[in-house]
């Protein structure tokens, strides 16, 4: 049933686009194999002596890196991971010792991996064409030419629609390049961020109907629209952000694909309150984000359920604050990529890949507290020592589809590669139960 649906949709997409766009389909070259010769100085696998966890290198290409932390990186069967190297798209199987594969030679300037079909969508820098390639067969199709400065950054749950942002009017290529979270390997400097923020370039948030190749603007704004992410479950629900310095923007928003329901997810109330690095929970309704009250003082992983309106805040200790977090698909554990002493947390011992187990109050929720934000804390478990990491390259942590590993990019050996560390989620959870103190006791006044 699932496979059948998958193939039907793939066919629909391909057929519709061929018909609508009237362009000759461009089939890709046979899948190439990359040479692993450049990665000899980097171990294939080792056991981290500080954590006892096994780390395995997944990629072979120097300066290879995973996708941005909040983008899907896995094929629907959970067997392969899509990543970037040399501005090109690569694929590697997560299990075994299969060689990496070059899927699309670059330069490309945006990438989306389907959650339903084994398709990678991307735009080419050369012609701004929007392409789809089947990861298994290598069949590639140009879907359409995108408008100038348009980027496609997300695909909806049933793979009928893509979405992205574009800058209207004339924009230098450097602005486009600088502000593309997919392409930039290092975060923007504060000055770059502020300059782009204050430019207030006219932008559009648009959807692209993959069946008809129709582009529809659903929001126009001079806010810097960025990080558009479809709900992984609800095909008409989008999250996007007002990009900029975190203390200057009410950042996280949701909107329906018909342009209705444009809603701020978190309204800041402190002058230097910071909200950012949002991502969808696998349930498709919950949005998680980094919350600091204020910036650099207290740290939370916060959530908002768009359906129920319920909010949650997990406290995180300063040293465990992470540039990015992700949630396991079942929501039971979280991962984080730590930070160096330069980050907002000014962590003294923060350079770790972390696994977090949530600790919440065990007593049932008092009905009179329905409207209050629920609280808990995240217990850290070090997975990988990143003391040699230069955080100019973001680790972009994410769980493997089976939750058994945490995948991250690291330059601890010089050039960056993508690694996986065994996360032992089950074992950790068992330990956590033992140590959980809950919150049922009345604290002393």
């Amino acid at each position, binding site marked *: 049933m699932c496979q059948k649906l998958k193939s039907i949709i793939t066919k629909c997409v391909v057929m519709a686009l061929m018909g609508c766009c009237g362009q000759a389909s461009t089939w890709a070259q046979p899948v190439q194999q990359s040479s692993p010769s450049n990665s000899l100085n980097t171990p294939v696998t080792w056991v981290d002596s500080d954590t006892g966890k096994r780390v395995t290198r997944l990629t072979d290409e120097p300066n290879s890196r995973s996708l941005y932390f909040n983008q899907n990186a896995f094929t629907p069967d959970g067997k392969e991971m899509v990543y970037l190297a040399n501005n090109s798209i690569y694929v590697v199987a997560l299990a075994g010792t299969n060689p990496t594969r070059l899927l699309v030679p670059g330069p490309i300037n945006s990438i989306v991996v389907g959650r339903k079909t084994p398709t990678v969508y991307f735009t080419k820098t050369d012609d701004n064409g929007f392409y789809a390639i089947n990861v298994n067969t290598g069949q590639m199709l140009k879907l359409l030419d995108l408008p100038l400065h348009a980027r496609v950054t997300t695909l909806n749950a049933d793979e009928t629609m893509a979405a992205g942002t574009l800058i209207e009017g004339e924009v230098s290529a450097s602005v486009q390049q600088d502000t593309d979270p997919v392409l930039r390997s290092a975060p923007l400097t504060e000055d770059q961020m502020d300059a782009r923020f204050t430019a207030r370039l006219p932008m559009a948030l648009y959807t692209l109907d993959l069946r008809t190749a129709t582009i529809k603007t659903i929001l126009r704004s001079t806010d810097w629209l960025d990080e558009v992410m479809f709900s992984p479950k609800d095909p008409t629900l989008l999250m996007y952000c007002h990009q900029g310095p975190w203390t200057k923007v009410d950042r996280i928003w949701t909107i329906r694909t018909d342009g209705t329901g444009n809603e701020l997810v978190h309204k800041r109330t402190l*002058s230097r309150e910071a909200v950012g690095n949002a991502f969808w929970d696998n349930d498709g309704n919950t949005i998680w984000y980094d919350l600091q009250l204020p910036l650099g003082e207290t740290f939370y992983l916060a959530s908002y359920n768009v359906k129920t309106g319920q909010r949650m805040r997990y406290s995180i200790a300063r040293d465990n604050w992470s540039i990015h977090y992700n949630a396991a698909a079942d929501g039971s554990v979280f991962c984080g990529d730590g930070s160096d002493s330069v980050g907002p947390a000014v962590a003294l011992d923060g350079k770790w890949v972390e696994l977090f187990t949530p600790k919440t109050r065990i007593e049932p929720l008092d009905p009179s507290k329905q409207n209050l934000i629920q609280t808990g804390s995240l217990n850290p478990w070090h997975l990988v020592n990143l003391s040699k990491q230069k955080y100019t390259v973001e680790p972009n942590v994410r769980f493997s589809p089976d939750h058994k590993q945490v995948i991250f990019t690291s330059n601890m050996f010089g050039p960056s590669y993508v690694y996986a560390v065994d996360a032992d989620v089950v074992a950790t959870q068992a330990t956590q139960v033992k140590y959980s103190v809950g919150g049922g006791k009345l604290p002393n006044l």
Partner: protein
Amino acid sequence: MQYRLACSLQVALLCLVSAMVGLTPVALSAQAVTTPTTHVGNTVPRVSWIDEDTGHRVIQLTPEKDSRGLYFNENAFTDGGKMMVYFVGQSVYVLNLESHRARPLVPGPVDSLAVARKTPVVYFMRPRDTGLYVAKVDNGQIVKVADLPPRATISTLNADETLVAGTYTEIDVPQHPVDPNLKASSVRATQMDARLADHVPMVLFTVNLKTAEVKTVLHSTDWLNHVQFSPKDPTLLMYCHEGLWWKVDRIWTIRTDGTQNQLIHARTVDNEVAGHEFWDADGVTIWYDLQIPHGANFYVASYNTTTRERRWYHMDRDAWSIHYNSAADDSIFCGDGGDRTQVAKSKNGQWIELFTPSLDPPPTGVDQTGMVETGAFQAEHLANMAKHNYKIEPNVRFSPDNKLVIFTSTVLGDTYVFAVEVAKASKQPSGQ
């Protein structure tokens, strides 16, 4: 600059401590101590020392055993800041901050009082007595001012010293049996919970000190407590909804005519707590302990009742204090720390603290209307409280000249009121 010799209080204290050398406690000059007539034999020679850990001089202010300062948010100073009012047992005493003489003012039992800032008088009530009395600090003369409703207690006097405010319950508060198996802290929590749940009808009232007229400001079945007049605005009252902090939206203001009843801090997080509120000397700003959630992240927060501006100063766990107070110009704050059984569960929190606030630079180029200003408290230890029994609340406050932090402590065994100098002690005290 550390010692301003022109300051009369400092001169007096220097005279008193002139015999002191080194770090060991030594007796203060005996002639400065007035032995209270009702407590013969219960006084000790007062001592002073330089705290080895902080370098600040600590001075024992009160000689009577079982002496203690007023609750931290009550005004303790009268006669324009020359005299400090305190309790010895249930009796009211006064200490002359210039001459350092201590003497009894009102023989106990006294169960509620309000100290006038300007006029040297103390308004007070006795248990099971509806009379409101005033005691003159100069001569100890006591006059009945008014008869108040049954069960009334008072806590505050307004800025122009025309009104006293307090609360009364309209019925007796139900008594609930105590489970003998519970720990003391649990007993307290259980009792507070039961008192909150009883929704005993209460009245927040003012009494006119000239006409003895009692006026209802607010009628409520919330548990009203900690009524505090603005020190500058004679018609502005702050009060609280008492109860376990995570179950109440606690801090409110109201006008004496019953209008503008207004919540100061609406909680948004489960287990968020706001409490131990006190007025800034400016008479418009309210400061309070804010924890989001309880026991996890600690702030001293403020709300300006005129401009509605808010400010949150964040602090580290170890700096959290049961009570805070601010110096008159808000340039410094003090705190009395806490032990590891208290909400912060601090492992190194038993200190009298001096806090220097710093504000974060607000983001530029964006509208900040309505945003809470943020900053942080830098803590400096003033006095080591390792030997203090935190079951006795230190109730820190600044002296009227902001040069001393005054607190109650058991560091010497019995309970006395102490002061610690805000400025570091010089190695060779001036005037020697």
